[in-house]
């Protein structure tokens, strides 16, 4: 298994297979799965983002979905004000990162459970604010935005277009994560996660690096939120409930904290399986998704406490 993950061709084959999938899905009557694939991709992005905070730096965050919401609403509001769609996405990333930095500056003195509780609170505050700030967000009625279909030359199906754009974003996110992980910055984060005091007394400015991980993770959430808004052409506060934050945390923890491959597999399993059951078995199965979710949590905790695909450290050539 480890060999398969570390093989240099594995990511390319996975990427190629994922890129071809929507074009052959029609042939096997699986168009529904293209849509599911897009949603899985959004959660892969969220998982990759949270992996910086939770996986690398070890900071618990139970309100991550708030930044997905900020990204989605920023995109919606900007596009309704006439900002071109690509710029709206950039704006979404910047605004999300800005909010995240402000939050980080105020709460990163807290650790462990205390941090988890405060971020959870922030998640709820964000949702309630969106729900009640009618002037800006139109409250529970949500915001509608005009369609943006930049990939018409490939397919006229919006699901396929957004599937491909999300796939590209995930690929970019994986490369960025892998490169940062294997660098001075990534080592500093992991050192902080392993032992904060030893990290500081090894010369790492701990607060700066925590803030950096915390802030960078929001770029992924902002991008995912923006793509989500443009795909759905509609945003409401209902999409950003506490449960979704838990789902993202579960993706990172079940996949393997700090493991990029783990996050991808975690999203695939947790987000992909319930709709797959619904599709293959019957529509009723969606009612059992929490049961399924609990079962996976219990099984992984029992048999693979390090996660489905735990992170492994790079091996150096020692003989030279």
């Amino acid at each position, binding site marked *: 298994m480890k060999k398969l993950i570390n093989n240099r061709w594995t990511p390319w084959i996975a990427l190629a297979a994922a890129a071809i999938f929507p074009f052959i899905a029609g042939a096997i009557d699986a168009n529904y799965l293209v849509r599911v694939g897009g949603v899985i991709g959004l959660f892969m992005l969220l998982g990759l983002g949270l992996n910086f905070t939770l996986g690398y730096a070890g900071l618990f965050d139970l309100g991550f979905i708030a930044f997905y919401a900020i990204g989605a609403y920023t995109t919606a509001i900007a596009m309704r004000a006439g900002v071109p769609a690509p710029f709206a996405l950039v704006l979404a990333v910047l605004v999300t990162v800005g909010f995240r930095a402000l939050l980080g500056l105020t709460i990163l003195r807290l650790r462990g459970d205390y941090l988890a509780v405060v971020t959870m609170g922030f998640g709820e505050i964000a949702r309630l604010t969106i729900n009640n700030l009618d002037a800006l967000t139109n409250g529970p009625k949500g915001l509608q935005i005009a369609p943006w279909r930049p990939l018409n030359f490939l397919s006229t199906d919006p699901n396929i277009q957004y599937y491909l754009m999300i796939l590209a974003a995930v690929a970019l996110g994986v490369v960025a994560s892998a490169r940062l992980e294997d660098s001075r910055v990534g080592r500093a984060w992991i050192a902080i996660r392993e032992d904060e005091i030893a990290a500081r007394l090894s*010369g790492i400015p701990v607060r700066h690096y925590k803030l950096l991980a915390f802030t960078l993770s929001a770029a992924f959430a902002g991008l995912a939120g923006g793509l989500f808004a443009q795909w759905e052409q509609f945003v409401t506060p209902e999409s950003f409930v506490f449960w979704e934050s838990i789902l993202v945390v579960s993706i990172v923890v079940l996949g393997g904290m700090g493991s990029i491959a783990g996050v991808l597999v975690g999203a695939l399993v947790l987000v992909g399986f319930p709709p797959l059951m619904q599709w293959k078995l019957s529509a009723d199965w969606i009612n059992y998704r929490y049961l399924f979710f609990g079962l996976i949590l219990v099984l992984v905790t029992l048999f693979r406490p390090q996660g489905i695909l735990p*992170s492994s450290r790079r091996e150096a050539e020692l003989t030279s």
Partner: protein
Amino acid sequence: MSAKASAPAGRVLLEVKDLAQHFGGLKAVDQVNLTIHEGEIVSVIGPNGAGKTTFFNVLTGVYPGTRGEILFNGQELRGMSGHAIVAVGVARTFQNIRLFAHMTALENVMVGRHTRTFQFLLGPLLRLSSFKKEEKAVEIMAKELLDFVGLKSLGNELAKNLPYGAQRKLEIARALASEPKLLILDEPTAGMNPTESQDLVALVRKVRERGVTVLLIEHQMRVVMDISDRVFVFDYGVKIAEGKPKEVVANARVIEAYLGKEGAS
């Protein structure tokens, strides 16, 4: 006993003046004055709870200190954060080993190089040539240090899987990676058998040969007598004696601190 008689001639590296660390009413460290010279190996000894580790924690910025000065090469360390103290040239190890358990031995040492390297976001993200060059240099130095402490072949092992003695040495290698002028070792031979202790003593001497001054807390008297140029004795947060190892063990106050008044008389 005169401290001045036994003070060596080297340049002053660390000067501690009237240092105190109080926790509420508890004076964990109080009125500590001492001087360490370049190239020395100096031990701090004293009964359990004498304030030795607290003293080290104030030196390295873990505790802020309540009063006094810590002058390192003339620069005030008190008030500086822990990572900045590493940057000016003071590195340390811990009494209860604090490695980065899920990183490899080599990576642990590479983390120690943090203050002497610069690559931030763009270098790693775009794999710039400056980044690759720096990574290469860090890796080469980390390997040299692993070799220096005798762990060359264990570089790819996770720190948590290393044997106890190797973990202690790895902490020293990680500390040396920041190129300290002063290395502070908190009970480096704790839990070691006599052979392992001998091994560590030899390593500490080798560290000094690199031009690094060493300050250590040590409980095994055989080790203290063997490697120390000078010894400071702490009791109840106060320095009660200093001098050459032989002078210190003959000191009545020191014997009293360890054995009580009966033993001293």
